[in-house]
């Protein structure tokens, strides 16, 4: 379970998804690189130390109230941690033996799922730009398709060159089999 919760590239994971066809198997699941969580992780860490400031601000209030505010603050901190983690965890790019599925989960109230058959994939390129992506070996992968959704973008994927090569091999395999 720890692997499922922490890895950004999962090979043949124990997962199923809504709309999975009979005989369809998940080959890979990609997420944004785990280092992309550093921003909110630092924010949450700072929030954990904030109650000392709260206690100082409300020092004149009854002790019962201060305890309540502290408890609420830690609850908010946990809530933000959980919500951000869910955002990373469920924002996945699934490669099955039949298709590509892009599950976007931007925030709590927005979800977008698109898919394209592997045989419709025409071109796969990757791009690593900027200091952050270069430093942490991340990149964006662009997949051109002949399907309804013309382009899929896998953002901030770890080891993009490897992922691009992998995807190209899978697509080539599917096209040569004619399935």
């Amino acid at each position, binding site marked *: 379970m720890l692997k499922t919760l922490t890895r950004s590239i999962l090979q043949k994971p124990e*997962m199923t998804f809504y709309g999975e066809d009979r005989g369809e198997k998940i080959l890979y699941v990609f997420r944004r690189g785990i280092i992309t969580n550093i921003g909110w992780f630092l924010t949450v860490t700072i929030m954990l130390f904030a109650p000392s400031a709260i206690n100082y601000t409300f020092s004149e209030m009854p002790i019962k109230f201060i305890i309540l505010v502290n408890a*609420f603050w830690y609850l908010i901190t946990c809530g933000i941690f959980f919500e951000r983690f*869910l955002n990373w965890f469920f924002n996945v790019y699934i490669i099955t033996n039949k298709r590509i599925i892009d599950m976007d989960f931007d925030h709590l109230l927005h979800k977008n799922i698109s898919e394209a058959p592997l045989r419709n994939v025409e071109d796969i390129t990757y791009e690593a730009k900027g200091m952050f992506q270069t430093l942490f070996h991340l990149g964006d992968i662009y997949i051109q398709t002949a399907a309804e959704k013309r382009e899929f973008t896998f953002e901030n994927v770890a080891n993009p060159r490897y992922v691009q090569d992998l995807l190209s091999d899978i697509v080539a395999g599917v096209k040569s089999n004619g399935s």
Partner: protein
Amino acid sequence: MDPNFFINFFTIEGFEWLIQLLVTVLIGFYNIFAFIVVRQVKTLNDSLSTDAGFLLSIIAYINMFASVVLLIVAIVSL
């Protein structure tokens, strides 16, 4: 209604009461957030079923339960 109700707002005790009321309202809003998280985790687990799904659901329910308890405590201590 106590005729001194509004006058009491302009005392230290009145101000403290207002702050407590504000915090209670904020906890109320957090309860809505916690409820949405529970619903969303359920929807997401339906979309993508993983071995961590149960754990995520439990965490979402604990978060909601804790926020409800906190709201009750806040209302009682008003």
